[in-house]
């Protein structure tokens, strides 16, 4: 039997801890005991793969899901999904969700006094291609207030959910926009200890995917955990 290779542990400071008291909701929900380290088994190195029906060919375009076009600044968000060795993650499901241009989610619990947009659901899905590339067309989400502290506002963001090849590579994250003044004050963003790691959550403005007379382009590359090296490679 071949020895089973696990997935690399994140470098210190590059991932949030569960408890980050400035993010108040973490206080009653983060476990108190330290996590228990376990040996690598097939249960972590395998994971689900999804049939292509899960994301219809149109599901990447959030601006064409209704009769009319949504209000707001039309943008494309594209990038590559790679592992920590720079290898593309092919044919993996990418799920996104976001607020509309006014900063309101189409969710019954969102009480922010901003208008819903009848032409915007704020949900997209796609699979990466053979080079690990993905692309979404959407509108730039608005910032919105939340109750974490006095005058708290979330920076503009898009939620991303990815699977990768294994249970161990599952990642849910948020993409932010360059130059957003709210980032400095956001405890969720700042839950990531290292500044260099936080910067990886900020997309970059991208001329290459900016389309004349149509939409601004933002690039957001996503890196999933890489495989541990074999003894030979080490």
């Amino acid at each position, binding site marked *: 039997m071949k020895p089973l290779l696990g997935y690399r542990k994140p470098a210190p400071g590059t991932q949030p801890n569960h408890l980050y008291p400035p993010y108040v909701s*973490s206080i*009653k929900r*983060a476990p108190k005991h330290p996590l228990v*380290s376990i*040996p690598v088994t097939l*249960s972590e190195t395998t994971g689900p793969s999804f049939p292509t029906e899960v994301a219809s060919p149109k599901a990447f375009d959030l601006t064409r899901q209704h009769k009319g076009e949504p209000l707001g600044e039309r943008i494309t968000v594209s990038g590559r999904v790679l592992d920590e060795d720079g290898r593309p993650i092919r044919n993996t499901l990418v799920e996104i969700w976001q607020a509309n241009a006014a900063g309101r989610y189409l969710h019954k619990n969102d009480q922010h006094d901003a208008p819903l947009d009848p032409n915007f659901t704020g*949900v997209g899905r796609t699979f990466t291609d053979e080079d690990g590339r993905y692309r979404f067309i959407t509108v730039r989400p608005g910032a919105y207030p939340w109750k974490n502290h006095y005058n708290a506002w979330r920076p503009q963001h898009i939620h991303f959910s990815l699977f990768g090849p294994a249970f161990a590579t599952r990642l849910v994250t*948020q993409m932010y926009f360059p130059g957003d003044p709210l980032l400095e004050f956001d405890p969720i963003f700042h839950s990531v200890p290292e500044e260099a790691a936080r910067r*990886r959550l900020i997309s970059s403005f991208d001329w290459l995917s900016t389309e004349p007379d149509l939409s601004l382009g933002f690039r957001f590359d996503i890196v999933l955990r890489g495989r541990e090296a074999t003894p030979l490679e080490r």
Partner: protein
Amino acid sequence: MPGHSTPSQTVGPFFSIGLKHMNRADLAEGSTSERLTIRGSVLDGDGQPVPDAVLEIWQADADGRYHHPEHSAVPNDATPFFGFGRIPTDAHGRFSFTTVKPGPVYGPDGKPQAPHLQISVFMRGLLKQLVTRLYFPEEPLNAADPVFQVVPESRRKTLIARQASQKQNTLEWNVCLQGGDETVFFDC
């Protein structure tokens, strides 16, 4: 050039709009094995139910095969056991799903692992998912399971589901985020 993985961020309070398309509480679909219902609650540090959590399940089939190229892909199987479930909690913090008991999968030393479900838990307030396992009651393989063995003995019970009283083929298991019954969560 090796890079670092993208940091995790919370799913937030409104994830259901993006994730509900793949809610899947029947993992037994396509399997002829005996069906089990597994139900429970997600509870926070005050023992209060968490109405905005979602569980993701990953498991082997009844023969102990993960449907994954690294183990035992069955691409032409007419009714492949998909092995994946996504189950949100309800307004009372409860969840319920149906599945089959997975068979034992071999572990790092070639010996069988005890049957178990892999479970990721996501919710507002969690900056990254929590990972745990559900083991089955009265299962002789539990004692020798390589993961079970590294868990302090006093906490192992948090990983084992209980037979529901007066309800056949129904197991109960809670996710306790904190407190005396805090569920064991893994770094894996």
